[in-house]
């Protein structure tokens, strides 16, 4: 037996979600139509609404309903430092630390040579324009410590250094409260290689 065309179309649409194959998509569609029609219409409304009102902030590139997001507009932030992160979730993590009061730029990804993700996909031109506003004096690269994150940090730092902007990279090493006995070998090796002098 075949599904009605509208249901078939819904199943097909659900497959655009990451990690959702034909089986999962069918399960989701059946669930929405049979068990939770209210939730389904809520989902349809909020999806439609989000598509219409959410765009990227003109300054930091994160998701925002306004042309300039509240964080970029805030008068309390230090406008001279700009922290570059890969994803909006990274921004939220850094905000939770309350250790940073500067501005952000969200790449919405990372350079990934083997997947064909290049400078256009991570909005490098927008970042260069943002960092060149005349107010930013330091750019902090807080991309992940993965090979792709490192490659991204390297290329951004080269591009910004050529334009006379000071660039730094967040530190890595032993975690907070970390015990040497239980830390993974790679982190420990890195911490040893990048040790720093105790007397300044």
């Amino acid at each position, binding site marked *: 037996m075949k599904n009605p065309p509208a249901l078939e179309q819904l199943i097909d649409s659900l497959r655009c979600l*990451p*990690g959702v194959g034909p089986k999962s998509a069918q399960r989701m569609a059946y669930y929405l139509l049979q068990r939770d029609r209210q939730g389904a219409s809520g989902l349809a409304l909020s999806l439609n609404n989000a598509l219409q009102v959410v765009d990227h902030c003109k300054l930091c590139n994160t998701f925002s309903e306004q042309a300039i997001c509240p964080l970029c507009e805030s008068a309390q932030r230090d406008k001279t430092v700009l922290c570059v992160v890969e994803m909006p979730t990274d921004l939220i993590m850094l905000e939770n630390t309350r250790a940073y009061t500067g501005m952000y730029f969200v790449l919405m990804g990372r*350079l990934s*040579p*083997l*997947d*064909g993700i*290049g*400078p*256009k996909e991570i909005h*490098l*031109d927008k970042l*260069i324009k943002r960092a060149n506003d005349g107010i930013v004096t330091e750019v902090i690269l807080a991309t992940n410590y*993965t*090979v792709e994150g*490192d*490659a991204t940090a*390297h*290329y951004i730092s*080269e*591009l910004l250094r050529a334009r006379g902007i000071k660039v730094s990279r967040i530190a890595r090493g032993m975690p907070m409260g970390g015990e040497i006995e239980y830390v*993974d*070998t*790679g*982190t420990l*090796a*890195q911490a040893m*290689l990048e040790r720093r002098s105790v007397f300044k």
Partner: protein
Amino acid sequence: MASVSSHRQDNQSVYVLHTYPFKETSLVVELFSREFGRVATTAKGARRPRSAMRGMLQAFQPMLATWSGKLELKTLHGLEWNGCLLLLQGEALMCGFYLNELLLRLLPREDPHEALFAYYADTLKALASEQHLATTLRRFELKFLQELGYAIPLQQDANNAPILMQQHYRYEAEHGAYPIRGTLARYENGVQLSGKTLIDMLNDDYSDEQTQQQSKQLMRYLLAHYLGDKPLHTRQLLIELQGY
């Protein structure tokens, strides 16, 4: 080596070539192993926040891997550090991605190449020292194609005559060097180069500037021939980055 019947391989020397998402929380991990060549495995749950393997799945690090399974896609059970941390940075890192892309594109799965594995490890070490990146890449490209079984004749031309230092040649994939007589014409196929370049490449001597240039053109042409229509992402990325 573990027994064949269990299809389990313990503590194999490997490098991670690439990972990509698989199902909701897993990854497909492409490995290059000493004894089995390129092996595709799945790391179950590796994208969960507290996965023990999460931080380990980094390219360019010598590791020991344990996997099992008899299908093409194996199950990865564990990864351990094997030897010291290799640090590829900046351009050397991009060269590393290039090597991995070559292996992913041209090396068939489960076709063991022990000599190539050793050469890959040495090449990563040479890249980590960040000296003569271009020469390191040329050596790897040549060795790589030869290991895969493609003949790249450097000693004799296509007519089995020895290569002459002063002679100009047109090098064609699958055939070799054809001497160019008289004026240099524009040819549709192949790369024009001097006999000296071929002799230098045979002797592994890349000190001459013309040799560096011509060997780069030759290798680019040969790789493009074997890669087919789809260009390399890493090369494309470098070209795009130069536009900034």
